[in-house]
C-alpha cells in the first residue's frame, strides 16, 4: 500500500489532530476543568492512526482507557469528547464515562474500558456478531503490553482463532505497565511468537514507522476480510508522558530520558509534515487548531448534567 500524497496528508492530519488535542488537554489539566484521570497517547499516535487508516467506516474499534488516539482516528466527534472530559451533559456519555470510556457508536467506536484487558473479549464478541450476521465488517482492538499478561488475553486469542473471527489484535507495546518495565514482567519478549502458537498470524513492528504499521495492518485486514480469521500485531512504541496525567515524569527515576530520545527523534508527526508541501501543511494545522479551539469552547460553555441524570441509565 504505497502512500500517495493524499494518504500522507490524511495521516498527517490525523496524527496532528491527536497530538494537538492531547497537548491542549495537558495544557488545560492544571485548571481542574477535567476532574478525572487522563491517559495520554502522546508519542504513540502512529499506532492508532496507521491501523485505523486501513479500516472501513463500518469496521469496529475497541480500546483501553488510553483511548483518545483510537477514538479520534476512528472519527469520533471532538466536541463531544472534550465535553465528556469536562464532565458535561453534551459529552459522549453525558459525563458519566470521562476520558477512559470514550464511545462513538455513530462511527463504530465500540468503547473503551479501564479494567485492563476487559476490552479484548468484547472485541471478539463484536467480531462474533459480524460473522454471525455476515456484515463483512471486522473489528480492531487496541491493548497494552501489560494487558497481554492477563489470562483473558490468551482465552480471547484462542477462541478467536478457533472460530476464525474477524478481529485484529493490536498490542501497543510501550514497554511499561504503569512504572514497571517489561524486563521485570516477562521472562522473554517473544510475544509475537507466543501469540502465533494459538494459530493466528502475528507480526511485530519495532521501528514505530507509521507506513510500516499501516502496511502490516492493511495486509492483515485484507486477510481477515477474506475470512481467514484473526491476526495479531505488536507495535513497539513509547509513551512520552507519565502513565496517567499531563506531565513528563523522567525525573521519577523509573526510566531515563535517554530511553525516550530515539523515539522523540523518530517522531512520525514532523516526519510526515516534511513530506507534504508547506501550504497544505499550514492549512491542515489551521484546521486542527480551529477544531480544537471550538471543541474546548463548546465544552466550557456546555451545561453540567442535571441531577436527575444520576439514576438514569442504570437499566436499559
Amino acid at each position, binding site marked *: 500500500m504505497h502512500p500517495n500524497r493524499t494518504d500522507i496528508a490524511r495521516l498527517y492530519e490525523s496524527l496532528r489532530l491527536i497530538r494537538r488535542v492531547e497537548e491542549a488537554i495537558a495544557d488545560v489539566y492544571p485548571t481542574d476543568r477535567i476532574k478525572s484521570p487522563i491517559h495520554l497517547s502522546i508519542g504513540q499516535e502512529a499506532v492508532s492512526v496507521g491501523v485505523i487508516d486501513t479500516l472501513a467506516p463500518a469496521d469496529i474499534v475497541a480500546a483501553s482507557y488510553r483511548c483518545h488516539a483510537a477514538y479520534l482516528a476512528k472519527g469520533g466527534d471532538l466536541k463531544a469528547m472534550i465535553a465528556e472530559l469536562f464532565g458535561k451533559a453534551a459529552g459522549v456519555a453525558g459525563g458519566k464515562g470521562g476520558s477512559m470510556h470514550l464511545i462513538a457508536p455513530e462511527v463504530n467506536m*465500540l468503547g473503551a474500558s479501564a*479494567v485492563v484487558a*476487559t476490552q479484548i*473479549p468484547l472485541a471478539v*464478541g463484536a467480531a462474533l456478531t459480524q460473522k454471525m450476521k455476515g456484515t463483512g465488517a471486522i473489528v480492531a482492538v487496541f491493548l497494552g503490553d501489560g494487558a497481554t499478561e492477563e489470562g483473558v488475553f490468551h*482465552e480471547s486469542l484462542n*477462541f478467536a482463532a478457533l472460530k476464525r473471527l474477524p478481529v485484529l489484535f493490536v498490542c501497543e507495546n510501550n514497554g511499561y505497565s504503569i512504572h514497571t518495565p517489561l524486563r521485570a514482567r516477562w521472562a522473554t519478549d517473544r510475544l509475537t511468537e507466543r501469540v502465533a502458537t494459538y494459530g493466528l498470524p502475528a507480526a511485530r513492528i519495532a521501528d514505530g514507522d507509521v507506513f510500516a504499521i499501516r502496511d502490516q495492518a492493511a495486509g492483515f485486514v485484507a486477510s481477515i476480510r477474506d475470512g481467514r480469521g484473526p491476526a495479531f500485531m505488536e507495535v513497539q512504541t513509547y509513551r512520552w508522558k507519565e502513565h496517567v496525567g499531563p506531565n513528563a515524569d523522567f525525573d521519577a527515576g523509573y526510566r531515563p530520558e535517554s530511553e525516550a530520545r530515539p523515539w522523540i527523534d523518530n517522531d512520525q508527526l514532523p516526519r510526515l509534515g516534511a513530506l507534504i508541501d508547506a501550504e497544505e501543511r499550514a492549512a491542515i494545522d489551521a484546521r486542527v487548531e480551529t477544531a480544537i479551539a471550538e471543541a474546548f469552547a463548546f465544552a466550557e460553555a456546555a451545561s453540567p448534567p442535571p441531577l436527575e441524570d444520576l439514576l438514569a*441509565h442504570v437499566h436499559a
Partner: protein
Amino acid sequence: MSMPECGARVLSYVDALREGITQEMARDPSVLLFGLDVDDHKAIQGSTRGLVDRFGPERVFGTPLSEDAMTGVAIGAAMTGLRPIHVHIRNDFLMLAMNQIVNVAAKAHSMYGGRVSVPLVIRSIIGKSWGQGAQHSQALYPLFMHVPGLKVVLPSTAHDAKGCMIAAIRDDNPVIFIEHRLLYFTETEVPEAPYAVEPGRARICAAGDAATVVGISNAARDCLRARALLQDTGITCEVIDPIWLSPLDTDTILASAARTKRLLVVDNGWTTCGAGAEIIARVLERAGPGAGIQVDRMGFAPTPCPTTPWLEADFYPQPERIARKVLCMVTGRDDDWTPNAAARQQSEDIAFKGPF
C-alpha cells in the same frame, strides 16, 4: 403446587426451561446460546438438549474453558446486536466471570450514558444433593443483587422457569438467571404459548395469616412443604416466592407481613449479607417502627457445604426446621414439635443420584 386442571399441560422445570429458550430462539434469530458443554450428550442436565440440531452449531456451541473471555465475548456480542445466553453448569463457576459481569456488563449502559445496552442472559445451576460439596453447591445471588445494572432471577417452578427465561431473553439488560438442580424434575402446569413472567413481581404461592414466609429458589418449595407440615397445628402461613430478586417486589412482601405481623425469609444461601437480610431491611424500612413486624431468617449453615450426606442434610434449612421456626414465631414457644410421620415423609426432597 396446586394440582393442574384437567386437560392442562404439565411440564417439568427442565422441559419448560428448554421450551422457553427454544421458542425465543425460533422467534428471534439474534438469540444464540453457548457455554461449556452445552452441546455434549448430557446437555446441561437436559436443558440444552436438541438445540444444536434445531438451530445449528453457529447459534448453539460449546466453548473452551474460558469463563472470563466468553463472558466478555457475550457482552461484546450483546453490545453489537446479538442476544446471547451464556450457560454455566454451576453457579460457583460464575466467580471466573465476575470481572466481566460486574465491571463491564453491569456498567456499560450507564457508563456510556445510555449509548449501548447489554441484552444478555447468564444461566447457572445451583447444585444440591449427591455430595455437591463446597465448590458445586453455592448460591451466590446476593453478590449480583448488590450490583446496580444487573437483574437477578431464581424461578422455583416449571411455569416460572419458562416465563422468566422468556422475560430474561427479551430484557435489554444483563440478567443473572439462576436455576436449582433439584427443581429440574419438578412439574407444574405450563402453557404452551410463549409468555413472560415479568421482572419485579413476586408470587403468593399459598395464602395464610399466621406468618409470611418468603422462600428463594428451592427454598420456596421447602417453605410450601413446611406449610403442609404445619397443617395439624392449625397454623397457616403465607408463602411468597419473590422470583426476581433484582428488581425486588417489596410491595407484595410488605403487604403480607404488615397483615401477618411475622416475616420469615428462608434463603437458599448463607444469611450473612444475604437476600434475606435485604428483604427484611426493605420491609422494615418501609413498614416503619410502629408496624410491629417480628422478623427472622434462615439459610445455609455458616460453613462451606460438606459432601457427606450425614452432614449435608443439616447444612440446609429443611422443611421441618422451617415449620418449627414458624411455630416458634407464632406461639413464642421453642418446644420440640414434630410433624406426623406421613406428612414428614411427603416433605422429603427428591434425592439426586449421581454420578455427578
